[in-house]
């Protein structure tokens, strides 16, 4: 055996290659001289280099390739001889005179190939002879390479169906028998390599060498799969049984694993389907160290890919799932020392297979999960190893992509989840939510929602550790953790959008349930989850309102219909009476035909949950957040106010507004936040049009006061200006409009005063221009308090100050705005319609 250092190896190799080159040189000269005897003897000399036992398989391969390159010349020479008319049988005998077995057989194969090609003898006979003779090399490495050469040479000369050698040359039976025989022998040689000399210490090395050589054995299976004439029947009856027999007989771990995998990879899916039984039967007989899981897994993957979600492609009567399952069960029975993670992996593979091949069969999936659950409950060790945990996570994540919400119907799913540590459950939960979202799942029953929310508990609340209360602000890690956390919570929030019930009552119940779950999430989570719930709640409120309105409308319609019916009945009764009265003895009474009955339809069901109740629910939620997130809550209150206003709940709207104001006063201290909040408040007030006049009054007065109390003067100025709009809300045509021209003027004047005080920061010109625009706005709206003299005065003021400004960007900006404003006034002055009104404004130009 080769057991030398790398350097020695290279030395041996280069020396052998040098000799090959030299012999080949003379050999080619002999070929040119058409000297058969000399050519054969030199070719034999060259081939003798392949007798070496010094090289590792890898290096032997190098040498082999080199020799084969040169051997092509000999093959060509034989071809030439044949074309020139020399019968191949003579040459075939002649090369066998060579006294050394290795060169003799290489030459024999080389001639044999040409012999078959010449058609001078049936291909099958020559192949049979060759396959018999190559037995003479029993040394594993040399035998494997020699047989590889045979396999290569014979590749295009097999009497396969449709091949030119079919017929006299034999048929596909001869072809596959030849390849099978070669496979058998090569496998045996390859296995024998394992047992060649050396002790345990060299085992690793031997195994590596064997791995290097395995492709030589596998090539035979590829050849078999390439035979045109082999159909599923032949494969089932002859080819596979033969291969499997070898697999079983060789009792070799490496070979069994490799060959089973090869079978799966090289033969077509239809063949696998036809032979699943025998294949699986062999699986259970494999050596214990063979990784049976990867074999079954790749077979299942192969079939699953073949079926590709199309259950028809795998015949139902085949019942592949049961077959795989039986096989796995048997293996689990027989291999008691299988690691837990491996068992789980097997089940995962089986489940994946079921999901892909039998998309509708939830029972299969449930069964696999159940198997895992029972295995897990049977394990005595409380702590799972890392691999098993990963495996369970995988197991639980896989069905999600295809089943999404349906997993909640699987009984075992939730049970299995409990085996996972918090972190992994969290991962699974994330995938669950994601796939549910992706599948556009609809959460329309309490049961579904409850199951889902229970399954994703790790996302909803922190881990509850025994003996210690859940930390309220846990989950805050580094920056990336934080980002991940936000992502997760956003996902959870999106669950809200999947809650979709046509019945507002159920919808409300669903929201209440979600609220209950989210409420446990702690301060950090509600920031992400509750706002979403609030917005959905608002939408719900609107639909409840719509429902209530329709009920009311219906009631009034029904009332009218009732009245109409009554009247009709009375009229009919009267008509009947009249007819009876008019009747005489001779003429019996003729009854008038009864009128068409008026049907009063059943009233639509009134919502059990009133709109008011929904708002109450929302109020609670927002209030709950108010302490931790005042700004956010303020915004939500404002939003709620708008919706309440839309629904005509004046008092509720006022309540929401006032809550927002309280938050503003109590919690908002940051001036920037205050400014932002104020802008929103103004906007909200402007969009709410249903307040009682008194309520509105107090709200806008309060707002304006807030504005005047802002810290920064320019902010004050801007906000007061903005607040002026509160006093001039709605167009004159709007019945709910609120116009207080004097107050508008007061606001603007106050703003001017403040702006004037901003001289120091030189922002005043800018503010002046802004205020001018506001004046202009109200002036155009025909606000009676705004007179042209104010405009003229303001323009004069601006003109005065603008020259004093430093030349910078700020000034340029102001100038542009100002110029545009003046241009606008100029245009108005020229317009026939507005000419008169704008005449009085002195632009100072």
């Amino acid at each position: 055996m080769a057991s030398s250092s790398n350097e020695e190896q290279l030395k041996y190799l280069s020396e052998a290659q040098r000799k090959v080159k030299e012999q080949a040189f003379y050999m080619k000269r002999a070929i040119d001289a058409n000297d058969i005897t000399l050519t054969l003897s030199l070719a034999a000399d060259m081939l003798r280099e392949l007798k070496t036992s010094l090289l590792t398989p890898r290096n032997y391969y190098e040498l082999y390739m080199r020799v084969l390159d040169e051997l092509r010349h000999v093959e060509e020479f034989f071809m030439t001889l044949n074309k020139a008319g020399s019968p191949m049988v003579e040459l075939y005998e002649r090369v066998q005179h060579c006294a050394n077995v290795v060169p003799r057989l290489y030459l024999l194969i080389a001639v044999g190939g040409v012999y078959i090609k010449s058609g001078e003898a049936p291909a099958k006979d020559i192949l049979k002879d060759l396959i018999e003779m190559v037995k003479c090399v029993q040394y594993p490495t040399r035998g494997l390479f020699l047989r590889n050469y045979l396999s290569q040479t014979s590749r295009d000369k097999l009497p396969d169906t449709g091949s030119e050698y079919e017929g006299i040359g034999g048929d596909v039976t001869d072809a596959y028998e030849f390849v099978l025989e070669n496979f058998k022998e090569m496998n045996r040689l390859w296995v024998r390599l394992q047992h060649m000399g050396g002790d345990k210490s060299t085992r690793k090395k031997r195994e590596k060498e064997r791995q290097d050589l395995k492709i030589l054995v596998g090539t035979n299976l590829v050849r078999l799969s390439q035979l045109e004439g082999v159909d599923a029947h032949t494969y089932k009856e002859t080819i596979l049984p033969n291969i499997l027999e070898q697999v079983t007989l060789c009792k070799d771990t490496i070979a069994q694993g490799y060959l089973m995998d090869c079978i799966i990879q090289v033969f077509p899916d239809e063949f696998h389907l036809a032979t699943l039984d025998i294949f699986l039967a062999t699986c259970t007989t494999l050596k214990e160290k063979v990784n049976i899981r990867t074999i079954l897994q790749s077979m299942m993957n192969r079939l699953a890919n073949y079926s590709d979600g199309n259950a028809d492609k795998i015949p139902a009567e085949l019942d592949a799932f049961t077959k795989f399952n039986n096989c796995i069960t048997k293996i689990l029975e027989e291999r008691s020392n299988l690691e837990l993670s491996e068992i789980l992996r097997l089940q995962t593979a089986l489940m994946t297979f079921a999901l892909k091949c039998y998309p509708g069969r939830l029972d299969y999936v449930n069964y696999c999960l159940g198997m895992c659950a029972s295995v897990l409950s049977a394990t005595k060790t409380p702590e799972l190893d890392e691999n098993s945990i990963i495996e369970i996570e995988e197991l639980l994540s896989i069905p999600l992509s295809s089943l999404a919400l349906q997993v909640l119907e699987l009984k075992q799913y939730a049970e299995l989840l409990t085996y996972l540590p918090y972190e992994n459950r969290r991962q699974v939960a994330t995938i669950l939510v994601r796939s549910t979202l992706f599948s556009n799942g609809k959460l329309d029953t309490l049961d579904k929602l409850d199951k889902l929310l229970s399954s994703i508990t790790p996302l909803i609340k922190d881990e509850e550790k025994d003996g210690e209360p859940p930390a309220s602000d846990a989950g805050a890690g580094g920056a990336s953790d934080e980002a991940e956390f936000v992502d997760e919570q956003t996902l959870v929030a999106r669950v809200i959008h999947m809650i979709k019930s046509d019945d507002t009552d159920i919808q409300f119940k669903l929201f209440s349930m979600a609220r209950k779950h989210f409420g446990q999430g702690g301060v950090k989570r509600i920031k992400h989850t509750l706002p979403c719930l609030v917005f959905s709640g608002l939408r719900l409120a609107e639909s409840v309102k719509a429902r209530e309105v329709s009920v009311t409308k219906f009631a009034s319609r029904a009332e009218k219909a009732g009245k109409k019916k009554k009247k009709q009945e009375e009229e009919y009764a009267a008509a009947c009476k009249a007819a009876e009265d008019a009747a005489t003895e001779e003429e019996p009474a003729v009854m008038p035909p009864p009128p068409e009955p008026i049907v009063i339809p059943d009233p639509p069901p009134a919502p059990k949950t009133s709109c008011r109740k929904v708002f109450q629910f929302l109020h609670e939620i927002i209030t709950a957040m108010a302490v931790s997130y005042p700004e956010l809550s303020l915004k939500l209150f404002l939003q709620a106010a708008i919706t309440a206003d839309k629904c005509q709940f004046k008092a509720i709207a006022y309540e929401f507004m006032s809550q927002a104001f309280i938050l503003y006063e109590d919690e908002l201290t940051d001036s920037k936040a205050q400014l932002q909040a104020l802008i929103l408040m103004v906007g909200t007030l402007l969009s709410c049009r249903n307040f009682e006049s008194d309520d509105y009054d107090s709200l806008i007065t309060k707002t304006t006061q807030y504005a005047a109390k802002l810290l920064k003067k320019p902010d004050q100025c801007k906000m007061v200006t903005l607040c002026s709009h509160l006093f001039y809300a709605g167009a004159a045509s709007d019945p709910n409009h609120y116009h207080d021209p004097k107050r508008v003027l007061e606001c603007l004047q106050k703003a001017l005063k403040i702006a004037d005080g901003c001289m120091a920061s030189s922002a005043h010109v800018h503010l002046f221009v802004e205020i001018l625009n506001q004046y202009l706005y109200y002036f155009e709206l025909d606000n009676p308090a705004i007179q042209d003299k104010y405009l003229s005065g303001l323009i004069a003021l601006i003109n005065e100050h603008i020259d004093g400004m430093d030349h910078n960007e700020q000034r340029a900006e102001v100038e542009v705005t100002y110029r545009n404003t003046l241009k606008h006034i100029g245009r108005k002055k020229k317009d026939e319609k507005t000419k008169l009104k704008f005449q009085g404004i002195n632009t100072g130009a």
Partner: protein
Amino acid sequence: MSIFGFGTNYKLQINLDPAPSNVTKEIKHNSTSATSDSPQPLPNDNIEVRTVPVYTAEEKCSGSVSLQIPQGKKCEHLGLKVELVGRIDMFYDRGGAHDFISQVRELEPPSTVYDSKEWKFDFDFDKPFESYRGLNVRVRYFIKATLTRNYSGSLTSEKELCIQHQSTEPEINNSIKMEVGIEDCLHIEFEYEKQKYSLGDIIIGKIYFLLVRIKIKHMELAVIRRESCGSGPNLFNESETLMKFEVMDGAPVKGECIPVRLFLAGIPGELTPTYRNVANKFSLKYYINLVLVDEEDRRYFKQQEVTLWRKTLG
């Protein structure tokens, strides 16, 4: 041409008719031993290749002896005879020759010949042995014409013949089958298709490995020729390995069956049939030796005699 320094003008020559089979054979000759009377072992110089006709045992060999006399001369002689000699030359021991055939034909009584002349002759009797050139012994056939003269010495001429015995397919030709082994070490069974082979035959066989506990490196077949001369205390055995033919590389496992196919035609050198007993002087036997060599270069072998026979001349 004359072999003597004088009388160059008189030429005695043997002309053989073509052999019935018309087969000839090239024989390497040492020119220094051109005559029958110099039975010394042949050194390998001055090798001359001669073509000789091949006869079977029964075939008549005929021809003529011609005497060429120069113009105007005459030849007085004491008689012309032609003889056919079958001779066994022994090179071993002290050597010696044994003529097992010596047939003489008187072609011309003592007289005077005035003109060139030709005399026909033929020999028609069985030639019991094949021509053979071995290590210690050889069998030769030659025809010698002698014109005895009184004073100027005799004129002679010699022609070698090649005799080959052609046989027919043996009626009984059993296979050789044998189980051999070393207990708990190696157990094999070998089988050769037949025991008797013609010279151009193929030895076909199989070797079954029933038990293999030694690390076999390779296996070969050796073809051995054994020439035994003399008898009793003067027995000389000379074995010659004609060819070593590797039949297996590496170590087989139990149950393996290795095919054997050896073309006798591929053996370098010349094969002859087996000679059981040649005039009680010598015998020639062939053996095939199956040799297994283990990794420590120990050799395990079993030798089997095979009988060779000649199917065709040549």
